[in-house]
């Protein structure tokens, strides 16, 4: 009986080591929730400002100054949202790694970062090129699609469920191509709502009760 147990233990050890050495498992669900909340708050501000701009547009007509001001404030907003979501996502993941006594930056984190960076950097450059030609219609769908591709590509190097999040982002991006001009709503859903749902599901599955999750 004890011999059988020791064999089972050995097999479980093997499985755990294989998983732990190839996947970055410290990614916290709370990181997803935090990033999602940042995105939603950002979208709310953006909506408000754009609305205000159109009210002014209706009263005073088009002025270069008003449009430039809107463009500038949206750009700053985007940068702030990106920074806060990265910092908060990083914080919760760092906290989880620390609690599990796992290194935050090891070869699994490197693999994940590299494999996500390939589609992300490609997408970023592609979007910049579109803006270069004043082609703004596909900016929002392209963000969602390339981000989704990055998640699908990264899913081999972290919690595999992130693949589904990636597929949903891609689907949302493709759907957005048929509703040009509603990019902000699609962004709010893709970067806000989906992140929160995914983050909550992952937290529920892996972190709510640490003892139950044998994939440490």
């Amino acid at each position, binding site marked *: 009986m004890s*011999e*059988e147990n020791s*064999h*089972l233990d*050995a*097999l479980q*050890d*093997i*499985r755990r*080591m*294989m998983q*732990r*050495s*190839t996947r970055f498992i410290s990614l916290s669900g709370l990181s997803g929730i935090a990033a999602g909340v940042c995105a939603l708050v950002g979208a709310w501000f953006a909506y408000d400002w754009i609305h205000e701009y159109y009210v002014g547009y209706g009263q005073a007509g088009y002025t270069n100054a008003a449009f430039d001001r809107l463009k500038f404030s949206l750009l700053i907003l985007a940068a702030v949202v990106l920074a806060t979501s990265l910092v908060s996502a990083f914080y919760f993941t760092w906290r989880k790694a620390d609690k599990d*006594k*796992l*290194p935050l930056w*090891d*070869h699994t984190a490197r693999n994940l970062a590299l494999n996500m960076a390939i589609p992300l950097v490609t997408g970023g450059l592609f979007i910049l090129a579109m803006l270069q030609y004043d082609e703004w219609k596909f900016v929002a769908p392209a963000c969602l699609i390339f981000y989704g591709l990055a998640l699908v590509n990264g899913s081999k190097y972290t919690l595999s469920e992130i693949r589904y999040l990636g597929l949903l982002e891609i689907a949302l991006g493709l759907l957005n191509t048929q509703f040009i001009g509603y990019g902000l709503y699609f962004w709010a859903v893709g970067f806000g709502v989906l992140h929160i749902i995914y983050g909550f599901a992952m937290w529920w599955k892996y972190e709510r009760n640490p003892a139950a999750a044998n994939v440490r």
Partner: protein
Amino acid sequence: MAVNNPISGLNKIFDNRIRLGVMSILMVNDEISFNDLKALLEVTDGNLATHLVTLETEGFLKVHKGFIGRKTNTTYAITKGGQKAFTDHVTALEKMIKGMK
């Protein structure tokens, strides 16, 4: 090769938890550094080094000594022989569990 029980096919070399861990990690990573192994297995330098020497002597792993700047960076990879020994061992483990049930 040290097979202690010819019927089960279990490999005595893999009785040790750390050696088994090293082999599991090498099965799924093309190559891995000493420091990454140390962190994953939560062992001391000396302890890990001893087990790595044992596995190298058995011909289960290849050692590659390189440099990152001036710091030495030793990486390890599994050999064909190591892969076979490990797969046989796992198959034996699985058989024994099934047989006992």
